[in-house]
């Protein structure tokens, strides 16, 4: 945390754990009898509970979206650039709810939680959850918080998929769905990258078929490789070029296989750090949730028919250099919304940062996001 708190920060925040005792049926056919969801909230819920905004996280995200947990925390929450007083998701006007999804590894029930049936961590026995399952659990969370209808459900990447799924599964329970840097379904190439990541994890000798907790080890190398390959898909050629170019750590080539180029040591560092804080089974589960996501599937592949269920208004944003979920994928979604006569606004934002651009507050992105959310706030009298 900086020495003095910036005026547009939500400040020091504390997560809370909510326990759910009613079993939740999952898409895979299994159920969880009880589970925890860890959440953070920012801002004040108004008297008629109409100003609530749900933040849905992406693959490696969690409930800590904004502010600092303590004065010692080096970096703020993962979407602090967009959540806070005067920011696009203005906490002076909105009551913001952010959670760690089921299957996560940051406090909500997931593969590294204790399975009440065995007294040991779930590991591979934790059911594979889907985007639809998450949305279902988020609806139960809304019930618990006394929120009948979200002013908006907002997310980037995998989070955007949840925002979209909300509009189909609970059309009356949200006014706006904000889908950023996302896609209505993964392409073969997207799934291929996920499969490389999964193979990296499952082929690690320390993986032990997902029961590594029992051996007191972590498949660190596999998780590191998975993160490295994932990380490449989050950046653009141009942004990597600008950041690292062909820069060497030392002056000359060493004709060996150590990390010589800066980009190599950066990826290794990112991978290593990630492998220390993230759970390998959760990573597998999250990539599966991505692969399975396809709301048009039940409608013969016709996304417009799926969207006929939706009642909310949509904001869809893409980024020019995002090659993980390209602008063309967002446009596919927008065109289906147009065909279904849903109210949608769309902009492709020119930004050099690739997929990660949704986390970076470039002026154009901030302007559009602010303008849209300002109207959402005005609609609910904030």
């Amino acid at each position, binding site marked *: 945390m900086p020495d003095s708190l910036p005026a547009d920060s939500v400040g020091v925040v504390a997560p809370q754990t909510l326990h759910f005792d009613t079993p939740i049926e999952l898409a895979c056919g299994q159920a969880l009898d009880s589970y925890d969801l860890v959440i953070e909230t920012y801002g004040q819920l108004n008297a008629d509970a109409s100003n609530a905004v749900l933040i849905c996280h992406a693959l490696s995200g969690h409930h800590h979206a904004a502010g600092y947990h303590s004065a010692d925390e080096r970096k703020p929450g993962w979407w602090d650039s967009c959540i806070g007083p005067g920011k696009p998701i203005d906490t002076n006007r909105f009551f913001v709810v952010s959670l760690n999804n089921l299957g996560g590894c940051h406090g909500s029930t997931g593969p590294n939680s204790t399975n009440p049936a065995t007294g040991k961590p779930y590991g591979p026995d934790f059911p594979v959850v889907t985007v639809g399952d998450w949305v279902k659990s988020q609806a139960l969370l809304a019930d618990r918080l006394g929120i009948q209808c979200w002013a908006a459900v907002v997310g980037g990447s995998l989070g955007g998929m949840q925002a979209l799924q909300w509009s189909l599964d609970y059309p009356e329970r949200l006014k706006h769905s904000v889908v950023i840097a996302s896609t209505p379904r993964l392409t073969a190439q997207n799934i291929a990258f996920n499969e490389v990541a999964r193979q990296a994890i499952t082929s690690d000798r320390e993986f032990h078929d997902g029961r590594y907790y029992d051996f007191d080890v972590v498949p660190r190398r596999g998780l590191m490789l998975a993160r490295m390959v994932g990380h490449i898909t989050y950046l653009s050629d141009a942004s990597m070029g600008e950041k690292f170019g062909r820069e060497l750590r030392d002056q000359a080539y060493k004709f060996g296989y150590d990390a010589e180029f800066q980009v190599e040591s950066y990826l290794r560092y990112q991978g290593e750090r990630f492998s220390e804080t993230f759970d390998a089974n959760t990573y597998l589960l999250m990539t599966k949730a991505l692969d399975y996501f396809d709301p048009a599937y039940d409608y013969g592949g016709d996304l417009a028919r799926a969207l006929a269920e939706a009642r909310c208004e949509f904001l869809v944003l893409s980024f020019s250099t995002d090659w993980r979920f390209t602008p063309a994928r967002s446009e596919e979604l927008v065109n289906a919304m*147009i065909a279904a006569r849903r109210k949608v606004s*769309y902009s492709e934002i020119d930004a050099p940062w690739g997929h990660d651009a949704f986390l970076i507050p470039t002026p154009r992105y901030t302007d559009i996001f602010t303008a849209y959310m300002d109207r959402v706030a005005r609609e609910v009298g904030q």
Partner: protein
Amino acid sequence: MRPDLEIIQQWIQPGHHILDLGCGDGTLLDYLQRERGASGFGLEINPEHITTCMSRGVPVIEQNLDTQGLGNFDDGSFDTVLMTQALQAVRRPDRVLDEMLRVGRDGIVTFPNFAHWRLRWGLALSGRMPESEALPYKWYNTPNIRLCTFKDFEALCRQKGIRIKSRRVVDGQHQNSWLARLWPNLLGEIAIYRITREIEE
């Protein structure tokens, strides 16, 4: 409200689904949504305009007519396709007209008349490219790359088999003066055409 927009809104029925090509800051669509119960989208490429549309709740799609066309819209999916003061700024107005009447039943087009007497007079007298209130740019920086006269436009419609359902001609203040009605191609500054491919009832 601008008098040309006033004229246009009279042609929109409640519940109509509308596409506004080059919707600007969304003034017209906003009005049609709120006052006429219409629905629809605006297409725009100007960043400030897009932001304003989003802020006022007008559904706006960032889409460039020149490079992206209207291929993402289904045949006959709109009651009316609007294009106010943008026809002269696209690269192929003829193709845009075709596309307008493919995706919409009716089209409403407004554009400045390059045969207005003041422009004719200016060119004849000074020998320089004319400028006016409706056309305030220099020849080298104007977005208006396909200027035409009312007669030109009507000839193109005839050639394409497009039927002109109605035409209103207004002056620079968007007033519908009797003089402009009498001698439109000389005295009218802006025309508002309502066009269709449907056979006359």
